[in-house]
């Protein structure tokens, strides 16, 4: 049986406390979120949560287990620092969706704004539409899948995360390059698109290109003129 919380009548504190106190297998329905911040954040049990309407900042922040479905849009920091589990929104997400996420899957049905997947540390993110500028900025690990286009400076200063884009890339950021799509990448991409159903349904894997780090910024470039001089003398 679904437990129902109408945020027009009860506070966000009551909702989140109930989610934190809940046991594995429970289901929740949240009505009238009306852009409230930090809705359904810090979930640790295997729950099913459906939010009917749009949410504000940090919805499902630091999510650890279970599934949160938002029927609407989400503002900044959707599922920030997600550890595991699934966060899925049907609409658009503004800035920093999936920021610093360490695991799990974030699905955005519509478009995601700037810095989607910033500093991601192992999360997988699938965006049905486009992503904004500097997406996957300083991304450390995990996969960002973009079914539409990517705006400027994609993957700037990226570490070991992978980016898959189906549409156009306006420009790549510092140290981000296009890489070969090998069979293992096709496999990863197919798995993520399937997990992101219905967003990934019917999307052709062969349309995607892969991007990642050129690894040229990993270490400082340090000259040693003295050593050079000594070497020339020795020669």
């Amino acid at each position, binding site marked *: 049986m679904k437990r129902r919380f109408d945020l027009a009548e009860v506070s966000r504190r009551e909702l989140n406390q109930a989610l934190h106190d809940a046991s594995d297998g429970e289901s929740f329905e949240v009505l009238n979120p009306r852009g409230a911040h*930090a809705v359904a954040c810090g979930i640790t049990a295997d729950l099913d949560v459906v939010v009917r309407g749009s949410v504000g*900042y940090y919805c499902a922040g630091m999510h650890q287990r279970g599934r949160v479905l938002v029927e609407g849009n989400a503002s900044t920091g959707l599922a*920030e620092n997600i550890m595991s589990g699934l966060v899925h929104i049907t609409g658009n997400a503004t800035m920093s969706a999936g920021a610093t996420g360490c695991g799990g899957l974030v699905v955005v049905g519509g478009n995601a704004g700037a810095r989607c997947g*910033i*500093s991601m*540390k192992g999360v997988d993110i699938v965006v049905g539409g486009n992503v904004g500028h500097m997406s996957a900025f300083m991304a450390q690990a995990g996969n960002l899948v973009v079914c539409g286009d990517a705006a400027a400076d994609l993957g700037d200063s990226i570490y070991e995360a992978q980016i898959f884009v189906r549409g156009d890339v306006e420009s790549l950021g510092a140290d981000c390059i296009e890489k070969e799509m090998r069979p293992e990448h096709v496999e990863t991409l197919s798995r993520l698109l399937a997990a992101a159903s219905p967003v990934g349904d019917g999307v052709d894997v062969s349309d995607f290109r892969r991007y990642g780090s050129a690894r040229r910024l990993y*270490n*400082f470039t340090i000259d040693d003129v003295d050593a050079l001089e000594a070497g020339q003398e020795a020669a």
Partner: protein
Amino acid sequence: MTTPPPDGLEPVEASDPDFWHLRESYSFDRNVIAEIRRAANTGIYRIRGWGAKRHLPTLDDLVFLGASMSRYPLEGYREACGTDVVIGEDRAERPVQLKIPVTIAGMSFGSLSAQAKEALGRGASAAGTSTTTGDGGMTEEERQHSATLVYQHLPSRYGMNPDHLRVADAIEVVVGQGAKPGGGGMLLGQKITERVAEMRTLPEGIDQRSACRHPDWTGPDDLEIKIGELREITDWQVPIYVKVGAARPYYDTALAVKAGADAVVVDGMQGGTAATQDVFIEHVGIPTLAAIGESVRALRELGVHRREVKLIVAGGVRSGADVAKALALGADAASIGTAALIAIGDNDPAYEAEYRALGTSAGFWEDFQAGNDPAGITTQDPGLSARLDPVLAGRRLANYLQVLTIETQILARANGKSHVLNLEPEDLAALTVEAAAMAKVPLAGTSWVPGVD
């Protein structure tokens, strides 16, 4: 880079009368010349640890007036002089209770060895105060050895884990640091070992440059929402601090209060770092002395001073005198980093021969980024870190914290105060015009506070 003089020649000694006609340039002294030569050889800016090394106005430029005709002192060792501090009692279910007004500042596992982190935890716990994690997450060892542990929430979010958030005794949102307001941390490849790399989700051996800006909020309005999220995730159990480098302390403090902080940590430019660009350390931020009064002014104007929002001051705090003066200016506690490392063995003269081999000397060692610290503190090398006995080093820190506390009490009693937090600006005078203007206390022997009517 060191270029030795040609065979048979020793560098000129300033004490040798044969060379008294030589005049060293103030603008281009030997230190400046060495740095220009180093830059020319390597093509990379200087990176080092420690805080600002240049001469600055400090808390030494203030003195306490003591008791006299109009106020009487308290008997040392006989009459009580409280030292406890409570943080977050207004909003948190579990406020932080400190027995002494001195805390240990945030320093990461990664920049420090596991033994050094354990020593800090042991020393602080024995003294009844808190330690703080750093830019690299929380280790099991430091949670275990710290009775009160503050968990830092930093721009990089390295090792950020909600399970750790919930076992912390307080959360510190780090906006900036005194050594580098506006800059992120660095951890060079030598120290990115397998364990450190795994905790930070980074490739081993890279030269890590941490983010300097939070990934999911910008500005005080966002921060208010962020703090709300952190409180929701932790069910309003623990206090939330906001740490800022001393840049615009009046505005930064006011905005931190507006964002919902239980405590504001203001870190002056003498505050240390494990590794940052030297140009940042020496040229960005203002001295601790100049920051305290401005933060207090903001707290007073908002009606939260010594009430809902506490002020923790850091950056070059070395002695009970520094602590007492910071409290008299309006801080609720002081925080130590560099001094704590020295207490557990940093720059120990016992390792002089090894410091010499590294081209430095005990008292000058600052290459915390190099990962080859002879004292086993700023290193991830198993052999070097094993040199630090965390039990013994913890005892040294506990002793040092006790001295800081007793010294603070001595000065409080001398000014007739039954609690160290009863110290007030009226107990102070300044020795220099600069200090009088910065701390807003009268120049000694006058009633003049520069800049105040």
